[in-house]
């Protein structure tokens, strides 16, 4: 708390949403590139996909799905907050979306192993 003097739960939700959005946006071109290999070089696509067998890559993948889930639930939370009649339980919402994100990504991770 000392390093970020003004931190509080909703602020953390904000920074998480921003960083996850940023991460996704940076990942997206790579993702598109790999998929477009399907057209030109299926073998390399396969090579890429095989990489997913390595634990480290699995972890990175987990990270990505986590980002997407966090951003997804965070985004839904924001739109609910902005557009649906206001409910005061903001912090609960933020926590719940985080929890949801963890749940999904962990399921993913567990099934992938």
């Amino acid at each position: 708390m000392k390093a970020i003097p003004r931190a509080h739960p909703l602020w953390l939700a904000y920074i998480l949403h921003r960083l996850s959005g940023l991460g996704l946006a940076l990942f997206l071109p790579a993702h598109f590139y790999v998929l477009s290999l399907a057209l030109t070089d299926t073998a390399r696509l396969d090579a890429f996909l095989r990489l997913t067998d390595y634990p480290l890559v699995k972890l990175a993948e987990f990270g990505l799905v986590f980002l997407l889930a966090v951003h997804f639930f965070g985004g839904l939370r924001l739109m609910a907050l902005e557009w649906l009649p206001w409910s005061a339980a903001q912090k609960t919402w933020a926590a719940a979306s985080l929890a949801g994100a963890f749940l999904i990504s962990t399921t993913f991770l567990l099934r992938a192993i």
Partner: protein
Amino acid sequence: MSEFHLYMAQRLSALVMAPFVLVHIGVMIYAIQGGLSAAEILGRTQGSVFWFLFYGMFVVAVSIHAAIGLRTILSEWAGLRGSALNITALAIGAILFAMGAQAVYAVTATGAA
């Protein structure tokens, strides 16, 4: 486009993406069992009008969404303003769309395998 229109476009594109993300995550959890392969992916998607429209809409939405999102971040965290900001955001949107379109084409166009 006014800032408020950008806001609306970002929210609406997020809403368009919401079902996609759910399905996408679901498919991934399902597909990842036993590892991914190019053939698996392509076998599912190639020649399918449904998947073309599905991924096509996603690419349009995400280009808009991420470009606006990055525009915000560039302005708030990198101090970009005015036309420099708008041109950069447009360029990001265009690049994302081009790469995304290529990927969709690669994954859903018939006969490429």
